[in-house]
């Protein structure tokens, strides 16, 4: 199995590498670039812990091959905190204690961020629906919903 050259932008910096085609994007980021904020909880696309941004969209890094990201742009949690919305979510999660072990948290933050970018004022039902594919065993989810709701209220145009 020969190696394939890839070139992509990761957290704002160009990265070039030779990778086995079988290497997932999640493993590429973790192993080749030490971006260990990408977490592996299931490696079959169900738990959501490996969520990151590819070309601006949230995706599951375990269900994307590194070679598929060639020519693309990846943002992980390590590169996302330059963004005010990410920081607002992290702050709200912290205040509300919307995490315990933290293993699901980078993915939760990025997934919530994608929701608020598209729908800045979701109902609690809509928040739960959007996060319904991200597994958390520690919190029971309510605190996470509360934290996302808190940030949405800070966004412009929030209903009184």
């Amino acid at each position, binding site marked *: 199995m020969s190696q394939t050259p890839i070139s992509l932008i990761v957290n704002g910096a160009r990265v070039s590498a030779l990778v*086995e085609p*079988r*290497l997932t994007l999640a493993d590429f980021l*973790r192993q080749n670039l*030490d*971006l*260990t*904020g*990408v*977490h*592996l*909880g*299931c*490696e*079959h696309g*169900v*738990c959501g*812990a490996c969520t990151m941004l590819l070309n601006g969209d949230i995706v599951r890094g375990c269900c994307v091959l590194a070679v598929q990201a060639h020519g693309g742009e990846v943002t*992980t*949690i*390590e590169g996302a*905190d330059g963004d005010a919305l990410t920081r607002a979510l*992290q702050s709200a*999660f*912290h*205040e509300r*204690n919307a*995490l*315990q*072990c*933290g*293993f*699901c*948290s*980078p993915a939760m*933050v990025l997934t919530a961020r994608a929701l608020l970018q598209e729908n800045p004022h979701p109902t*609690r039902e809509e*928040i*739960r*629906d959007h*996060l*319904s*594919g*991200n*597994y*958390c*065993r*520690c*919190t*029971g*989810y*309510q*605190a*996470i*919903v509360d934290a996302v709701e808190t940030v949405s209220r800070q966004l412009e145009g929030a209903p009184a």
Partner: protein
Amino acid sequence: MSRDGAHLSSLDLPVSYIGRSVARPNALRLLAGRGTYVDDVKASRVLHAAFVRNPYAHAKIVAIDVSRAQAIEGVVCVATAEDLKPFCTPWVGVLSHFAGLRSQPQGPLAEGVSFWQGEPVVAVVATSRHIAEDALSEIDVTFEELEPTVDMDAALAPDATPIHAALGNNIAFERRIDVGAVDAGFADAAVVVERDFSFARHTGVSLEPRSILAEFNPADRQLVIHHSSQAPQMMARIAAKHFGLPEHDVRVICKDVGGSFGVKIHIYPDEMAAIALSIKLGRAVKFVADRLESFVSDIHAREHRVRGRLGLSKDGDIVALEIDDRTGIGPYSMYPRTSAVEANQVMNITGGPYRIANYRARARVAFQNKVPTSQYRAVGHPIACAVTEGLIEAAGRKLGIDPFVLRARNVIPDNAYPTVNAIGLKFEGLSHETCLSKLKALMNYDELRRLQARKRAEGVYLGVGIGVFIEITSPGPEFYGVGGAPISAQDGCSVRLDPGGNVVCHTGTTEQGQGTDTIIAQVVASAVGVSLDRVRVVSGDTQAAPYGGGTWASRGAGIGGEAAYQAGFKLKDGVLRLAGIFLQSDPDKLDIADNSIIDRASREPRIPLSELSRIAHFRQDELPKGVSPDLVATHHYTPRNYPFAFTNGVQGSLVEVDVETGFVKLLKHWVVEDCGTPINPLLIEEQVRGGVVQGLGGALYEECLYDERGQLLNGSLAGYLLPMAGEMPDIEIDHAVTPTREGALGAKGAGEAGVAAAPAAVMNAINDALNPFGAEITTMPMTPERILRALGKIN
């Protein structure tokens, strides 16, 4: 201020964080993706392990051919049981205080016969996990499939073939309790209800899988283990024992742990194999169980069939209670905590909140060819509570007594403590009555019943259910230590003042996200008199902590917290003695507040702590000769008056059952809990919520489905259904506070209470919704199909 047993109010301390909802400082790095979980730890020239696992429930290992695998580039070692014997001695999961508990020896890899689908048989170590997995398919293991014993009742049948010939039958453990006059009680009862409850096997599914990085350095023969686990001290002692190393040459480090819930507190063959391989190869070996492996190797739990019987007098007094509990634990009792504890706790906890003089219980713990089971969060409590509360509600429906009225009538009254119940459980102080009335108000119960009636008229079926629970926390040495387990019931905390006037605190408790580090900091800051940001907590490293027990049985606050509290006071004493010398003042006239030495009477600051500490560390010339500043203090604490610090609470559930599809909508959940002095209500509440959802998972969604050949049918997250955000309710929480007098802090444990009564409450709610149809369900998980079958709607 008093610190030797009298309950302290936060007003006694100049600065107190006890009872304050502070956010966790160490959560920030987790939100930034900068945690360090085991798989994130870098090691030099690390190798990766993978395992060939037995695909059968029961099989003879006839032959193993590893030659093709060994030839693969990047494969460093392929090992069988024989190869690891020189490095690792076998273990047996029994403890002497579980009289009659039997099990068989286990090693890191199966030898001769393998007893469950998933048991590791061959280990591969390679330069990457990819290559290790490639090698697995090149290993030929010839198995001869043997007849599996799968169903627990089949295992217990008199003619059953023993899984372990040497043991003669499949009974791992049996126990009976018989107090009072049970038969007479039932004879006198106005109403007797009997039910068969069934609880499905399920498993913890921590999001971070089990992970271990073992680094044996042959040059100095020291072993360093990075471990995703709850009890590093236990692991270190066991590793020293089984790998033949001096205890002080074994270091176990738990950095960030991605959830554990009891799963990561047991000794696993694959992890022991990883350590053995590190020693054999003299290199770092990492093993991370992937999700498919986890389902067939993490401990399962809670597979029980319970027949319960309850008798009520015509006025609704419980006159007799009896249970017969059967449970299947897999082919081995887990080491070192055994797999008898769950059944033992079901027997002990059933009926616990109530005044019951006549109680009989029998437990039979059976071996079977499935994944081994053992302690998982709230061990046994959800079963005990569901059986008790299910029987009570069934009896109450028969007598036409409201659930709240029936509970209030039978719970041990709040003014009856301390007391010992009929089976000898010592209760220091519980608050069932208070919690019940708080729950009723919190739920707006009367309005809920009115709503239910209105909705029924519209053909919408709401159900309201409650569950009363007691919960074991902060166990003393009688729980494990007395049976010979290397598990410490005490915990230790060392605190020192650094040159900058900060307090560095080393604790034997551990953090998996519940906030132990934060509450230790709060407790220490309060005891010493510094602000919270001046406290740094170090935990999880056996080389850098006083000996402790780690996390289990909700002991962090009650035991770890107390040790930290007392250590903090000792440090304060030492600081004030030094301050007295330096300021030429009587130490009793001084205090510490807001990071300064102050005059106790006038509250006037005398000298900043940082300044005093600077002098103590660098300017000994400013102190009288012979003065040795006492700026390090250690305290170890063990609860000794009560074997457990029982806590209590009640939960309520509101559901809507779609009687055409059997689907249950969880509309709302409530918890009123009493964990004694709350150190950080924010953390407690989120522990409770997490526990509730975990309990709801087992009650409605989670089950490990096996076929008749002992094959796990749903061993992935696609088939094993976990509770997700879309289906879970908001959970409202209120508190009662009954501090314990064991220790000055008054804190009891809170970590498992959420799990204990959630299944009971939701089961009672569902049965309440089904009541108009005369239907009932006592099998968990309560899937839509099971509910529909209970309604008789599927032909």
